[in-house]
């Protein structure tokens, strides 16, 4: 990865010897200031990513320290974005690390007034049961004129457009094999 550093042109950087009669500069530096370091410099690794908001496709560098995202900023190598990000792209770290993120499966039983937690494995099992049930209830083999339909109208899906291509591919493939046709996306909206 190339990185433009404006300091490259300044080899004698930080050689400090002079006086500071008013005590407003070098001599005023605190311990905290001396220890200051950019957290991008201390990251363990940088993942090359793409902004998840609009469709411009700005490059993002995701800085990771101790398996935590510590900074996300524009990728200067990108011919699309040249390292720049809009306010949403600039808020990406908050998007992925903020407390608003749900971490647990939540379940609301019919007629319940609140959420309860549910084990992920159990939830997957329950959804599997329900898919088979709804599929059977909505199954249509033929239309009124005898044309083959071989489909279920019992299951529908609506996807967002921040899904990966690979995810969309599996969604369409699996639902098609199930016979579900009401498989839709933000792309219609």
């Amino acid at each position, binding site marked *: 990865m190339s990185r433009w550093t404006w300091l490259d042109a300044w080899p004698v950087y*930080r050689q400090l010897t002079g006086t500071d009669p008013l005590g407003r500069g070098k001599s005023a530096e605190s311990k*905290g*200031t001396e220890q200051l370091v950019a957290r991008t410099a201390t990251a363990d690794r940088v993942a090359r990513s793409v902004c998840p908001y609009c469709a411009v496709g700005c490059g993002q560098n995701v800085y990771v320290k101790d398996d935590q995202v510590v900074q996300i900023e524009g990728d200067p190598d990108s011919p699309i974005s040249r390292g720049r990000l809009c306010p949403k792209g600039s808020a990406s770290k908050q998007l992925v690390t903020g407390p608003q993120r749900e971490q647990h499966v939540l379940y609301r039983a019919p007629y319940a007034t609140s959420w309860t937690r549910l084990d992920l494995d159990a939830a997957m099992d329950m959804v599997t049961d329900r898919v088979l049930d709804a599929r059977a209830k909505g199954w249509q083999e033929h239309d009124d004129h005898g044309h083959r339909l071989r489909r279920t109208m019992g299951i529908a899906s609506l996807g967002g457009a921040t899904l990966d291509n690979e995810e969309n591919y599996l969604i369409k493939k699996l639902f098609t094999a199930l016979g579900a046709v009401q498989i839709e996306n933000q792309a219609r909206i």
Partner: protein
Amino acid sequence: MSTDHEPGRHRLYGRLDDPAADAGHVEHPPRVGFFTDTSVCIGCKACEVACKEWNLVPDDGMNLLGMSLDNSGMLGANTWRHVAFIEREAPLGGQVSGVEGMPTGASGVAHMEATVAAGLRDTERGGGELGTTTVDLGMPSLSLPGAATGAESRTDFSWLMMSDVCKHCTHAACLDVCPTGALFRTEFGTVVVQQDICNGCGYCVSGCPFGVIDRRPQDGRANKCTLCYDRLQDGLEPACAKACPTESIQFGPLDELRERAAARVEQLHERGVPEARLYGEDPDDGIGGSAAFFLLLDEPEVYGLPPDPIVASRDLVDMWRHAGAACAAFVTAAVAVFVAAGRR
């Protein structure tokens, strides 16, 4: 290295070509700053967000200000970049607004401004209790004499946006009046608050002629733009300039920026934008020029900037010489603390 002091100039006022050296950084990197070209600002506020993400600045509350699309209002402890939006019932050079020939009535700009200004005056600022703020803070204003036509029907419109920031003055009153040494000038010529020193006295708040620095409600300490001091040391540009989608915010060595800015003004003049002018780039102005300077498309007051900012500590030396002279309460207080606390 020492500065050649001309008559009427001293370390706290007047032209000073190398503030870093003046502050004891003898061999230091070039002085750096921001050139904010408002003629290409799209008001996206990426700078505000990128700044907060990098510097871990808290949010500033979920309050609708409604000054056009501006809800941040002004620079403060939790807003180190602020994008001002100015709706004007006036044309902008080189632009056709599309208002002409429409069935319009009177402009709503004055109504908007009056409504928002009423709310803004109540905004708290840390340090404001000293009652010594040097400028009427913050808000862009259209109340220039003659700015409002008062016509029955509006015939033109333009919309200015500007990302404001700490100016990192050549003569920085905040730094001059800081009694604890929390504020200091870096080897890059920038002015930074050291959070491990600041005791929250608030003198710096009163000292700033731009209303930039402010105490954070959460801990009382003074906060403002550091020009991403930590990033500079790692060779990175500040977060706001890095993010800016249109290069409205340009970072670099100040000399280069000044050249670029002069060329840009000339280019805009050639292209029929006679309004283009620079603000803060003049080393001979009341603050010795600022490291963060601007290309504006109207008078500074329109953007909420003081037209002729003067470092509040300009008169400190005179006051030392003429003890007992009448002076502003704030300056007295500042000097008292300044002298008492001394410097390391």
